[in-house]
Structure formats: structure tokens, C-alpha cells
């Protein structure tokens, strides 16, 4: 079910918010001991929140998400509700406050149904780096759902929630969206407040979400985006009414196809074919494609894996077991690897060769995008070079895991927005296409994606829950 349909049903009294929330809780009860989407389910508060929403609905009070159940990635601080970051080191942490985004979502009437599983601290592309049980893809439970916002994606795909929030530092909203047949937004850096979200790499981190449709996604962005005095990196740019823009004309929009992305090693033939079919559909909407070049593409992952671990090593220094949580030997293997890599890159004698060099290459990559956006309005590329991979396939080789983000990380390096949209299936497995635009061009991305979704309703192909 989409949020749009649910809002209509709540307003016309087809069902109550309590029934809607209970339906989600029933799905969790039935399937989550196998899928492992949730780390904490807040059933009691969700049900009482739903009762309250029903009474407000009855009084005719209007709020954009009134009575809608949502799931929050476990990096979002939630007042009096356990927040683990997917890590065992803070498995007992009860935040005394809500993240700004959580406050905004609650004020808009949304109901928090629970906290979702993830690669611990956001470190991963598959969900397998959780310190708990790895989340499984409901489209094929032997495969990964994509990470790091793995549980939030599966919660939406499996009907346990109508939206799932995530953070995106390198791929963490868009990859699980692509692997689970969802729409996932990575907004412009500074578009959405990060106050109260556990930090990973502060010059990259963005706050996004996953939904079934483009409309639903745009609706949540209207609620979450905007300036926040508590996050000095938020930019005071007005938030457009994204949902009202849907339906605007797309004819004549120029889309760039970065040739380096299509020459990338490891791109599966089936992905290439699915993307080409999607491009034909975009063409039928009057879109013009133009080949462009982003010359520094092949250096993006190397740049990312210097800068991000450096910032990670600094951000994770605060977990010392003094103010909350346990001692540092409780970190999982991937967190340890990133702390070590970052500490190495920042250490005396290595700083210039690693950190400074990578920060300069970051400028080159950002310039590549800025130059290309002088010729085209947006760009398009696959969200992933492969279909969702098997659980365990890449866990022993961290580098091969890192390379699954090859089409997504450059977007974070440049701080621009990216939207992953379902664009077909290989067998029963979903494929996503990514639309990327200049900073603060989210509206344009939504308009284009919505026009495509109107001719291709891939989101209606839900997983076969009987097989789980």
C-alpha cells in the first residue's frame, strides 16, 4: 500500500490508523523472525499513537502524515526508545531526545512503529555488517537487501511499514532502494537536518528515506527538508512543494549519460539491458539523452575510502564507554577496519599523501559534475552494477563489497542529490536507475521519476510473501 492510498483511506474512513498500524505489526510478527528488518518494535506506543491519530482524524484535523506508520533506521535518536546504530557497543542506549527529523515526522502526524536493522554505524552495502542478525531480501531471502539502511528497506518492501528512513553517506539509501524495488532519495548535502542522527562521515552524511512511489517520497521530503538551527550545515534555501510539482512538463529535459559509468568493470549484462529499456521509456516522454564525461570517475572509490574512514575514525572516537555504551573492544569488524584505515590516513607522515590528496581529488570529482551540468539538466546511471548478491558472497573481501557502490558514492563526494527509482526486474530481482542533479534540484528529480513511474508501475510488483 502507498502512503497516498492510505491517507485517502484514513480520510474516507475505509480503515482506521489503528487498523493500519496493527496490520504492519502483524506483518512484523509473521515474517520478521526470518527477515530481521527490525531491531526494536515499539508496538505499545505505535498503537496508542494510532488511537490518538484516529481521534484527530475524527476531529477533521489535517496533517501531512497523520496516522501513517513509519520505520526509522536505528541511527536516528528517538526519545526514550533504544537506539543501537546496529552495533552491540551501544545496545543499551536510550536517547533522552529526538533527532530533528524525528520531531518533524512526529509533528506531521507519522507514527514510529520501530527501529530498523542496518550495517552497524552505516558501514556497509549489504546489511551484513550489522552486529545483530543480517536482514534478508524479501524478493529472494538468500540474497542481501542492500545496505546500510537494510532493515528500513525491507520493512517497506514487506509491508511492515509505509516508509523507512535512512542515512546516505555513500549509497545507504539508494542501494537498498534499488535492491528492494523502492524509491530512495539521497538529498543534497545540507538539505535535511542531521541533528540527532549518529554521525558517520560528517562532510558526506545525508538523511533520506525509502517509499514505494515517487509521490510518497516527495511527500516525506516536504516534511523533513529545511533549515535547522541545530545543524549548522543545513542551508537556508526554501523547500519547494515537491508533490505539487509532480506532473510538470518533462519534454525537452536533457539527460546526461556518463560514458565512464557504462564502461565500468563488473557491470552485469542484464543490468545494462534493463537500464537501456528504461532509457527508451524516458525517450518516449520527450527526453533528450546526451553522452557526457566525468573523467575522474575511476578515482571516486579510492577518494571515498580515504576521506570517509578518516571522518569515521574521528566520529567513532566518542564511543568510549564513559557516557553510554560499552568499551571499544565491542566494535564489530567493519567499524574496526574503518577506524584503523582512517587513523592511518590521518596519522603523522601519512596525512598529506592520503587525506589531503584525497580531498584534492574530491575537488576534481565535484568539478567534473559541475562542468557536466553546464551541458545537461540531470544525469542517469544504474544504481548498482549487479543484481542483489548472495548473503555471504562478499563478506570476506571488504574491497569487493566497497565496489558495489561505484555508481552511488561519487554523488556523495560532490554533495549533489540522487534518486533511485525502480526500473525493472532481472527474473524476480529488482533493478534501480539513479537520477542525479545539481545541488538543490530534488524537485526536478521527482518530476522526472514521477513521469516515468506513470508509464511503468514497477512498484506494484510486491515480493511473494508466501515463499518466505
Amino acid at each position, binding site marked *: 500500500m502507498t502512503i497516498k492510498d492510505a491517507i485517502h483511506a484514513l480520510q474516507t474512513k475505509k480503515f482506521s490508523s489503528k487498523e493500519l498500524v496493527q496490520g504492519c505489526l502483524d506483518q512484523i510478527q509473521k515474517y520478521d523472525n526470518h527477515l530481521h528488518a527490525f531491531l526494536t518494535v515499539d508496538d505499545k506506543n505505535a498503537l496508542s499513537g494510532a488511537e490518538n491519530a484516529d481521534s484527530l482524524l475524527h476531529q477533521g484535523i489535517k496533517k501531512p502524515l497523520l496516522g501513517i506508520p513509519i520505520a526509522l533506521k536505528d541511527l536516528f535518536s528517538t526519545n526514550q526508545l533504544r537506539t543501537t546504530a546496529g552495533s552491540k557497543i551501544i545496545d*543499551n*542506549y*536510550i536517547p*533522552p*531526545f529526538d533527532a530533528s527529523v524525528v520531531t518533524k515526522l512526529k509533528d506531521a502526524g507519522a507514527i514510529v512503529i520501530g527501529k530498523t536493522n542496518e550495517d552497524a554505524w552505516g558501514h556497509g552495502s549489504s546489511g551484513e555488517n550489522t552486529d545483530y542478525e543480517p536482514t534478508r531480501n524479501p524478493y529472494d531471502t538468500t540474497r542481501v537487501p542492500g545496505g546500510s539502511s537494510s532493515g528500513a528497506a525491507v520493512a517497506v518492501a514487506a509491508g511492515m511499514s509505509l516508509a523507512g528512513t535512512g542515512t546516505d553517506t555513500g549509497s545507504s539509501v539508494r542501494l537498498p532502494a534499488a535492491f528492494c524495488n523502492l524509491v530512495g532519495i539521497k538529498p*543534497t*548535502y*545540507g538539505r535535511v537536518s542531521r541533528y540527532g542522527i549518529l554521525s558517520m562521515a560528517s*562532510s558526506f552524511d545525508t538523511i533520506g528515506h525509502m517509499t514505494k512511489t515517487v509521490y510518497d517520497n516527495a511527500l516525506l521530503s516536504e516534511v523533513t527538508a529545511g533549515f535547522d*538551527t541545530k545543524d*549548522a*550545515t543545513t*542551508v537556508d534555501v526554501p523547500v519547494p512543494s515537491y508533490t505539487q510539482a509532480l506532473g510538470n512538463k518533462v519534454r525537452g529535459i536533457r539527460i546526461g549519460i556518463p560514458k565512464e559509468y557504462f564502461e565500468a568493470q563488473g557491470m552485469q549484462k542484464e543490468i545494462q539491458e534493463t537500464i537501456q529499456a528504461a532509457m527508451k521509456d524516458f525517450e518516449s516522454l520527450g527526453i533528450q539523452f546526451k553522452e557526457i564525461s566525468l573523467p*575522474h570517475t*575511476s*578515482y571516486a*572509490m*579510492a*577518494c571515498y*575510502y*580515504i576521506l570517509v574512514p578518516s571522518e569515521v*575514525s574521528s566520529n567513532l*572516537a566518542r564511543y*568510549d*564507554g*564513559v*557516557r*553510554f*555504551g*560499552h*568499551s*571499544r*573492544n565491542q*566494535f564489530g*569488524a567493519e567499524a*574496526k*577496519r574503518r*577506524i*584503523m*584505515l582512517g*587513523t*592511518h590516513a590521518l*596519522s603523522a607522515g601519512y596525512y598529506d599523501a*592520503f587525506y*589531503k*590528496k*584525497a*580531498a*584534492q*581529488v*574530491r*575537488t*576534481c570529482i*565535484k568539478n567534473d559534475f559541475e562542468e557536466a551540468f553546464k551541458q545537461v539538466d540531470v544525469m542517469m546511471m544504474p544504481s548498482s552494477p549487479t543484481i542483489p548478491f548472495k548473503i555471504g558472497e562478499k563478506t570476506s573481501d*571488504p*574491497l569487493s563489497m*566497497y565496489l558495489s557502490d561505484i555508481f552511488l558514492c561519487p554523488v556523495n563526494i*560532490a*554533495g549533489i542529490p540522487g534518486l533511485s527509482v525502480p526500473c525493472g526486474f532481472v527474473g524476480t530481482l529488482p533493478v534501480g536507475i539513479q537520477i542525479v542533479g545539481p*545541488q538543490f534540484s530534488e524537485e526536478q528529480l521527482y518530476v522526472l521519476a514521477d513521469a516515468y513511474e506513470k508509464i511503468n508501475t514497477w512498484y506494484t510488483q510486491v515480493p511473494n510473501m508466501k515463499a518466505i
Partner: protein
Amino acid sequence: MQSKKTSIDVSHIAKLASLPLTKEEEELFSKQLSSTLSYVQQLGEVDTKNVEPTAQVTGLMNVFREDSIVPGLSQEEALKNAPGQHNGFFKVDSIF
């Protein structure tokens, strides 16, 4: 893609990062981190002469706010998650 092997002094770095590691972890990470470090060496190929480093992508700078008092956490709330407390303070291991 993999050029020359790079090594990393895992036990030294672990000490800097205040990260206790087991012998097995040291061996595993030494192998895995060396392979990642070999991969990132390719950055050396990029000509970055006269290129400024980037750390802030939207160009914001000098973000100020009024230095005014706003409500914060109470002492009790701030201490609630602390594993060790003493007279309303956080208890830490001695460092000398």
C-alpha cells in the same frame, strides 16, 4: 588495479585509535587493510597541482548564532546512560 603492496603497522595504529585488538584480528586486518591501501594508491595518478582540497561541498562558511541560553538536558538525563557514576559525575578510568 592492484599495484604494489602497501603495508600498515596495525598494532601501532590500533594503539593510536585506542582500539584493543586480538592477535587474530591484527593478522586479518593487516591483510585486508593492505589490500585496501594498495587500491587507494591510484590517487597518486591524479594531477592535483594547484587544486584546493574540498571539505565543505555547499560553500557555507562562518555560520553564527546568538550566544543565548537555551534549555538542555538535566544532569539526571545526561547521566542516565552512563555505566559508571560518582556524585553526579561520569566515572572514568584513571589515565595516569
